[in-house]
């Protein structure tokens, strides 16, 4: 499974790579990282009908996660990517906006990796 993680915090990469050490090694998942909405869009644009799960932070400078979600939805990609949005704890407004924009899942920070793995059916 290809997973695109979008977050402006660079240490997220280390975190995911260590958290999913075994899964990466067993090639159950393949992580790609983008550090801004723009970078993520560039990556998505060069996808060739590849199934992908996008895990994006909402609160990012420049293009926010919600704007990215809107762009992705407009692209009508085939196959349709699964989009999971991550935001700060207790952020009702962003949760509702993400839902209305068609987000498939919503996670709050700090990310509960056990829960994430369950959702990704990796357990």
């Amino acid at each position: 499974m290809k997973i695109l993680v979008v977050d402006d915090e660079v240490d997220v990469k280390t975190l995911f790579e260590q958290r999913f050490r075994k899964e990466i090694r067993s090639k159950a998942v393949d992580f790609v990282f983008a550090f801004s909405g723009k970078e993520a869009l560039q990556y998505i644009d060069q996808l060739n009908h590849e199934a992908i799960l996008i895990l994006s932070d909402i609160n990012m400078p420049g293009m926010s996660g919600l704007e990215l979600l809107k762009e992705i939805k407009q692209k009508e990609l085939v196959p349709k990517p699964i989009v999971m949005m991550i935001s700060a704890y207790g952020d009702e407004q962003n949760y509702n906006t993400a839902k209305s924009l068609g987000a498939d899942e919503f996670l709050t920070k700090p990310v509960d990796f056990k829960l994430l793995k369950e959702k990704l059916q990796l357990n």
Partner: protein
Amino acid sequence: MSLDKDYLLQKSKEEILKIFTSEYPLEKIPEFIAEEVSGFGTTQDERAHNFQEFMKILVLQYQQSQEMGIEVSFVEKPFHQWQNLSKDLALLVQEFDLSIKSKVGVNTIDFRLSSLFEWKQDSWKLIHWHGSTPVNVEKDAWHVTEWQKKNDELKQKVEEQTQNLMLKNEQLQKAKEQIEDTLKELKETQDLLIQSEKMASLGELTAGIAHEIQNPLNFVNNFSELSNELLEEIQEEIENKDFDEVKAICQDLKGNLEKINHHGKRADSIVKGMLQHSRASTGQKEWTDLNGLADEYLRLAYHGLRAKDKSFNSELKMDLDPNLPKVEIIAQDFGRVLLNMINNSFYSVNEKKQQLGESFQPVVSVSTKLLDGQIQLKISDNGNGIPEEIRHKIFQPFFTTKETGQGTGLGLSLSYDIIKAHGGTIKVESKIGEGTSILIEISQKKE
């Protein structure tokens, strides 16, 4: 004395009286007046040393008579006359009750006139006169009473003026005290305002601070949990005798501990910064990493605004000179300058975004540079720019373009004072519709 001469003297006397009472045609006057005539009248400027000066007095007198509609009549009192015919000289000494009738009323005065005539070319000509009106003071040949009167008047005037001055002095003293009180009140108000401006910007910061602390805290939690799990994995790998993997995990562990430390410090510096910001300035300069400060405040301002307005967003650009030396500044004050400038930039791009919508991509950038011993800090945005007509006002206290309640109007004014206190300069470059750049320069000092 010949009869003719005597008759002519009487005639001249009468004509002279007519002249002195403005009843004689001016052009005929030279017939009775000698070229070298001299004399004195009652008033200060009635004095003549020659015919021209004599005529000057008369012309003025004639004019006044006409303007005021003066009519003069007189009653002659017994007079004294002296002649020396052999020397062709005659002296007339006369006293009159002079009645002067004018538009303002009738004035009767005593008038004394002495006139000296000389027989010249078959006519008597006036060569000297002295006219006066007596002051009504008896037995006072030296005008002592008059002096005393004047002296008393002067004394009274001096006293009045002294009183006046004392009163004015008192008023001035009161005004001075009032001004001092007002100044004191103003200073107190200013202190309060500075504090409230600080607290207002702190309020804007709070949400940003929550986000900025939450993020490193998440990392601290994540990496420590992860490290705990990695320790378990190490044990597993030891049992499996896969020592290469053990080494790799140890390497990761080391990295994670560094990250925990890094993010812990990040949260720490934010909390300290916030506390510093709210406290009164210590005024203590310290060697500061300006890049770190700029980075911290750019993020705080950004997240602060985002927390208030979810629809707001802007690209953040940082171009920080890695070779920038530490600078000796009052970090807390400098942080406030940064926060004010960055907040203004965000405000401006946000305003433009609301006007132009999706087509506009807001960008706020912060850069640092070391150039010719000068440390440059630049805060730029691609917002609406500052109109030329208000550019000179932006550093004035209480000047704001924001809506009431949105800004104190003190941000830039305080920033200006802070940079000045650091011996630095602050320049504004702005183009309408294109954006604004604020350039702060301070000289580099060796640590």
